[in-house]
Each structure stands twice: as C-alpha cells, then as structure tokens.
C-alpha cells in the first residue's frame, strides 16, 4: 500500500531558468541526504483544467449557480494507458482572500485531502486557489478514459461543450525524475504551462516545481497486481493517516534542508483518508494532483 503527499513550489516570475535551478537544488538535496537513492525511469504528467461557464441569460439579481472545475489528468507513473476526468464544485475565493498577499492555504474543517501552506515570505507568484469547500472523502466525480482518447475528448469538451465549459490552462511535466530511497519513492518535476491554446508547446512558462513523496507500507511494500502500486489490498494493514503524513513531512523536511525557495508559499497536499480504501486509492492520488495543480493567474 502506498501513501503520497505532494509539495508544489511556486517559482517567482515563472521563468524556466529559476525552475530549472530549483529542480537542480532538489536533486542535489535528495542525492546528498539519501545515500542509497536510486534514479529510476522518468515520468510525465499532463493536466488540463476547464471551468464551468455560468448561463449567459441570468437575471441580474439571480443567485450565481455553483461553479465546477473539470480536470483532465494523465500521470504516467499512476497509469500509462488511462486519463482521469475529475469534476468537482468549488467556491470562488472571497475578495479579502484575493487581496491578501502571502496568504496561507488553510486546511478545511473536515479534510480528506489535506491542503496546507508553508508560510515563508510574501508571495509574488500565481497563488493557488483557496478551495474553501473541501475536498472531502468521495468529493466530486472521477472517471477514467483511455489515454489514446484524451485529446479527442478534450476537443469535444472545448468545442461542442464550449457553452458549458471554458478552457483555463494546460500544464505538463516532461521528463520528471524518479528516485527510490528505501521505502520512499520521490517523483519530482518542473511544471510547464503553455501560454496559449490547450496543446501549444511554444512560449512555455514554468509556474512551479512539484515533489511527490510516496511511502510504501505494509506486507512486501509493493502491490504487484496493479501497475502503479496503488489499489492493493489494505484490509490487513493497520494504518494511521497522521503517522503516514508525518513520515512524508519528515522526508520533505530532509529534502528541503538548506534550499532557499525564495518567495512564495509552498503548498502541501496529501492523499487523505481515501487512501484507506484500496479501491479508491488511485482516485485519491488523482484528487491530490488536481488540487495541487489548480493555479490562479
């Protein structure tokens, strides 16, 4: 059984040079603090975000309908041949929250996916959206579609369903780096955002770097029956979520020791309680990534 936590490090100015420098520092940190860290095969990620479009003919004083985000996510180490479509409602941040600089992301009252910010200095980079409504266990809807049909499905959402869904951004991680260090798996990568168009690879900026720390627990550690290690039988494994999250944070504290990440709040997102159910572990990973990759700006 695997439990993961994710850290999103915003890059000031979103320049590729700054992002590459941060990535290099993290690699040095991992290789120096984890003596037996072994580099594994690379991984990739593709994330497209769409937002629901409110009806155009709403009366002026009518209450605004609830809005939703739709994520189209492919993570190669989670599943090579599946893309996940995740839809969930969200509450737009209040004006006070938007105006504040260096805002902490507050943990919601009953979190399944824990979202925390690490206060450093004032943030000058795109802020993550303050999702005040959750997520909670089983929050939103997730389906899986064949990876080969991702682009055509996205085209359908963006054209035929354009009155309902508006495209927001596309994020990619190319050639992400994977380390195994004992019972931990470390996936790091630079996030690249295309400035225009859903699949444009020109004029890329790099809003941040992600570090995903996975701790493997129970039995022989790896659930061989799945292609990612998630979703194995968890019935005989006694798990303490807080203990697992503590382990992940410990590893992160070791990795980031001595590294100056500059301005910006580092965002922490954990798998949450869905990790306890073997069948929904993959969904918990999908929610974790989607929550981390919601950017603002």
């Amino acid at each position, binding site marked *: 059984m695997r439990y993961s936590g994710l850290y999103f490090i915003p890059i000031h100015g979103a320049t590729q040079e700054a992002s590459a420098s941060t990535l290099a520092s993290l690699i040095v940190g991992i290789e120096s603090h984890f003596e037996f860290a072994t580099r594994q095969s690379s991984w990739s990620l593709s994330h497209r975000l769409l937002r629901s479009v409110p009806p*155009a003919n709403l009366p002026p004083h009518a209450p605004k309908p609830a809005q*939703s985000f739709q994520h189209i996510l492919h993570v190669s180490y989670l599943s090579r041949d599946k893309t996940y*479509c995740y*839809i969930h409602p969200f509450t737009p941040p209040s004006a006070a929250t938007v105006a504040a600089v260096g805002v902490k992301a507050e943990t919601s009252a009953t979190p399944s996916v824990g979202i925390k910010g690490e206060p450093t200095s004032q943030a000058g980079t795109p802020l993550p959206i303050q999702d005040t409504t959750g997520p909670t266990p089983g929050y939103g809807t997730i*389906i899986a579609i064949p990876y080969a*049909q991702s682009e*055509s499905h996205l*085209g359908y959402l963006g054209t*035929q369903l354009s009155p309902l869904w508006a495209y927001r951004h596309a994020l990619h991680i190319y050639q992400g780096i994977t380390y195994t260090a004992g019972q931990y798996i470390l996936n790091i990568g630079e996030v690249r955002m295309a400035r225009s168009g859903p699949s444009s690879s020109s004029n890329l900026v790099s809003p941040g770097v992600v570090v995903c720390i996975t701790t493997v627990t129970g039995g022989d550690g790896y659930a061989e029956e799945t292609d990612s290690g998630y979703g194995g039988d968890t019935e005989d494994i006694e798990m303490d979520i807080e203990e697992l999250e503590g382990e992940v944070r410990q590893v992160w504290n070791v990795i980031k020791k001595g590294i100056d990440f500059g301005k910006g709040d580092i965002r922490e997102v954990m798998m949450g309680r869905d990790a306890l159910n073997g069948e929904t572990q993959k969904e918990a990973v999908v929610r974790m990534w989607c929550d981390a990759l919601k950017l603002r700006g």
Partner: protein
Amino acid sequence: MHELLLYGQVPLSRHEQVLKVLAGVAAMQPRRILQRHIIYKPDREPEEAGLNRPRGGTQTIAVKQTKQVGSKDLNYCQLIQQLSEDEFGNPSKGPPVHGGGAGAEAKWTLVFNDTPDTGDRGVLTRLSQNTDIISGDPHAYMVAARHQFVSEYYIEGHRFVHENVVILLHRVLHEPGVRSLATAPKDDLPAFSSLQPLDSSGGYILETKIRVQDLNHPAVLEAGVSELKRFQTQMKGCVELSEPERLALDTRVKYKPQTT
C-alpha cells in the same frame, strides 16, 4: 472523427433473409448487439437564435465591425452501455449504471453525434465523438458535466464489418409506459421480454457507416464515399440504402420560448 452514413429499412418478414445475405456479403457470422442508450441534454436551455445579432439600423459612427460570434448550439448526447441477454432482468448480474467497473473492455461509451452536414455527396456526413469510460460512475459524470437525464432506450440487432463498412441491422426497443418523471436511468435492467419495438411493425433499420478520421483529406473522403456507394450498389435489390433527410438526425436542443 466523421462518419459517412446510408440507411435502409427492412420489414420484419425479411429480417432473417437480409441477415443471411449480409453474412454472405461480409463473409462473417453476425455479431449480436444489445445496447442501452441513455440520452442526456445540457442542464440549461439554448438561447434564442439570432439574439446576439444587432437588429435594425444605427445612427452611431461607423466603426470597424467585429465579427459577431453566434451562440453555440447545445446538443443531446448519449451514454451507450454494451449488454448481454443474461444481464436483463437480473439485478445480480447486470452492470450497475452507477459504476463503470474496471473490466478489460469498456462497457460504457460517451457518444456525441453532431447534426449531419449539408452537402451533396450522396451520403450523409456528420461529426462523431466517442469516448470509452473505463471506470467510474458514468451517470454521475454526466450530471457533474452539466447534463441532465432525458430518457433511455435499447438497441438489439446484429453487426457486420465488410472491408471499411460497419453494418448494423437493428431495431429500437423501449419499455412501454410513461417515465417522464424519471431523473436518472434505471438501476436495474428490465426483463428483455418486457421490451417492445418502438416501431410497432417490428421492422429493422439497416445502418451502414464508414468512419473517416479527418475530412480535410479530400482523397480519403472521396475513397470513403466511393466505397459506401459501391456497397449501396451491391445491396440493390436486397435493401435500398439511401441518404435520409439530415434534419431527421438533428441532435440540437431546440429553443423553446418562455410562455407567460
């Protein structure tokens, strides 16, 4: 992806004969097809056509007119579930609508068919988008994607493949009785024997289809049209295949003016 289509009608009395002819032409045994089609429409009403265009004259200073973008049509779409006969009327065996399962073959497909294009090629042409749902709750996804349930029906028939032509000899079945108040598809499938043909004569529809990835390649398009027309000629005397009225396959949600 685009589809090139021709349709024909087969009365019930000739169904077995046509099935044998098609088996001979396609050189294969017919493959039994049972499907459940669940229709959805967007959860908002379409705008009145032409509402966003300026009406009448104006006395303003002439300025460069920006292109008026028309309102985008809203279309019906479908979830199609592949079924077998023993899944009907058997709650323990039937795949639930609220759970796609994780089988090797996707049981659910999200299908969007656009209104056929205008044109004079002799075959119907339309944009079609199919997305297989491997796991998850298809109905919950459709609702979350801003759609609402409309109705459901069943298809039973046989499929053949002859070179690039996909041939479907089928008829539409439905559960008699009014279900206008239903807001979700049924959790349990009815017994197959309780379904009745939508066409009370029991007649079948012969759908012949060629899929073309991209219409921007004229040579590929022409090849597809020619092949479909050759099949049309081949079937003359057995089933008359023709191009139906394109608006009979119109999937747009119609604007309904508000009554006061």
